[in-house]
């Protein structure tokens, strides 16, 4: 054991030095790289809204996501080039199953590289699909502590990152990275995320409002390895510190690489 001790020390200190030398953007790029290649995702989830006085409301939804083209998305090989007019971005579609009054209400989101993201909300009672404006994206999604902005997969090119520190959270060693949006209509001045050093998955994020006051905290729990490669949290809890409300999101069924294509993420699919 003593023969290996110096080696252990060497690798330990080298590893620590390596981690400290990682910038915020490098950590985020590594996270993106590890989360790339799943092609598409489908999940069924339950959303529990807890009011400031403890009152509860349950919702159930189906969530679908298509990974951006060039990363194995659209059901095409990663080498197939997408139109150069609009660089590819992720697409997602949420449809509510319960309760009855919001059944079939859906949200379609397009992540765009060089301009604001697009979101459409379908209201079945009115038979209409509505556009969500820039300011509207910072509003609450169906009364939950998730904003419309939270439901668009973040594009790392739209943020500035700063490595803050390294510390333990939830029994795991984590990088702490601060993110500041470069776009003007974000609901947040910054977010601070705890990213595990072993698998580069986010386990906690603190959100700050436009006056840089603590707004809410999201915990990503029950990290599960799917398809032997991709980590997914099966529970996300968001606690709002300013209004004392909370939203718990639990995933009950999850599958990757379902064969989705771009045609499954259109306004026609949203309204079907």
């Amino acid at each position, binding site marked *: 054991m003593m023969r290996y001790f110096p080696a252990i020390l060497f690798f330990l200190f080298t590893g620590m030095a390596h981690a400290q030398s990682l910038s915020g953007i490098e950590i985020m790029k590594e996270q993106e790289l590890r989360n790339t290649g799943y092609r598409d995702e489908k999940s069924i989830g339950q959303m529990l809204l807890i009011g400031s006085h403890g009152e509860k409301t349950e919702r159930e939804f189906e969530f679908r996501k298509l990974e951006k083209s060039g990363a194995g998305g659209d059901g095409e090989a990663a080498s197939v080039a997408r139109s150069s007019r609009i660089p590819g971005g992720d697409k997602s579609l949420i449809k509510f199953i*319960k309760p*009855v009054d919001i059944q079939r209400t859906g949200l379609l989101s397009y992540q765009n590289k060089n*301009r604001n993201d*697009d979101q459409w909300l379908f209201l079945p009672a009115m038979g209409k699909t509505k*556009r969500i404006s820039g300011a509207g994206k910072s509003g609450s999604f169906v009364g939950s502590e998730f904003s419309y902005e939270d439901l668009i997969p973040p594009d790392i090119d739209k943020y500035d990152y700063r490595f803050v520190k390294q510390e333990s959270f939830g029994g795991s060693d984590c990088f702490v990275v601060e993110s500041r949006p470069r776009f003007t209509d974000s609901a947040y001045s910054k977010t601070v995320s705890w990213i595990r050093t072993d698998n580069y998955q986010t386990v906690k994020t603190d959100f700050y409002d436009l006056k840089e006051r603590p707004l809410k905290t999201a915990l990503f729990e029950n990290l599960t390895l799917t398809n032997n490669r991709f980590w997914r949290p099966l529970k996300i809890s968001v606690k709002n510190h300013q209004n004392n409300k909370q939203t718990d999101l639990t995933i009950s069924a999850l599958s990757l690489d379902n064969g989705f294509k771009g*045609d499954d993420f*259109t306004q026609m699919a949203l309204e079907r």
Partner: protein
Amino acid sequence: MKGHPEPCRRVAWFLFALFLIWPSVASAYLEYKIEPSFEHLSFFLNRGEYRINDQETFELKFGFVYDNEKNFKTDLQPRFKIDFRDFSRNRYLPNDAILKYYQAKGEIWGGLQTITWGVAESFNPTDIINRRDFEDNYYDPEKLGEVIGGFKYGWNQAGPFDSLTLTFMVLPFFQEAPLPEDDTRFPLTGSIGGIPYSLFEDQDKMGTPQSVGGAFEISATVKNVDLSFHFYHGPERNPGFQLIIDDNGALRLQPFYYLIDMIGFNLEAPVGNFVLRFEGAGKIMSFNDPRPHDIPFEDNNAVPSNHLQLVPGFDYTFTDFAGKGTMRFIFEYLGEIDHSTSLRDFRPFKNDLFVGFQYDFNNTRSTQLKLGVIKDLVNQEAMMKFEFDTKIYRELKFAIEGVFVHRDSTLQNSPISFFDNNSYLLGRFSYAFGERVEVK
């Protein structure tokens, strides 16, 4: 029953029967929904008659959706509506009963359906596919289902267009719009030169070859702008009116139907914190026989003149408003090129301004408040509508709604001032429950 001829009943029963046998040949999920509601509506105007002063409505709505999650779907929404004070308002037929075959790129469907065209919040001139239930309400009449066969095909991306979609629809059967009778709240009665007139109940329908309607829509997103163009050819689903003398020599108002070609567009685009909207419809009646009816009191025929209706506007959203709520402010202009006020062009919203607010409390009770005002820019006519609804216990909802009308007594041919002041307040309780069941 008035306004619901035999083809609608046959289609509805066919789909219901198909819905019953479908589980035996397919497996996927079944969604059902049941929503009973009770509402009491009180008019401020005292007509001196118990029966028509107020409305007390019990409604039972059902929703059944069967989807094999591959390519077939049925959507049936039966309903029963009973007004304990006015049985002419009772309704039993569904407005939506559809059978659909779909793939990722397209779908084919048939059945009873209500179609919604238009992006404006206050008034949708392009929304002409369905006839309206004027017997029930004339401020905001309900759309009634039409028998429609349709085909839709889309491209995720086609050149500069995202979500390019083409929709074709055929409306093979023509149905008359329900109109209020003389002893109801909104009688179509009045006088001309001191001579009283009332509604002539026989509606002058289109001949069989002319009763088929067709519609086409093309929609796409270009950069961040949602665009759609609409075309409709066929009988206008809601009647025009002509004055006639009946067999007894009385002056009567006869509803009649005419052919219309509608070319419309809708544009919606988020710009920063705004969402810009623009809706327009050009309506052409040139293909009608110029003298299809005897019109003793009009210079020309009673077919409306060609006209263009435009509704530009925008909305702006404030978040974290008054305690973490979301406030949406809406501003729209409702205009028409033709401002004439003759009987042949008896239409509202020719030169009006709409200002609206929508406040979402963002709470677990889905509480929402809406307020909107339409004001004529030339005369004193105005309408205000407010809605407040919230869950009070689980899925039990309570809603209050009100419409307040300010008429201009100097106007005779305005749809707003033609009727009595039918301002009202409404309270409604409703409870919705349902389930999605996996069917193996």
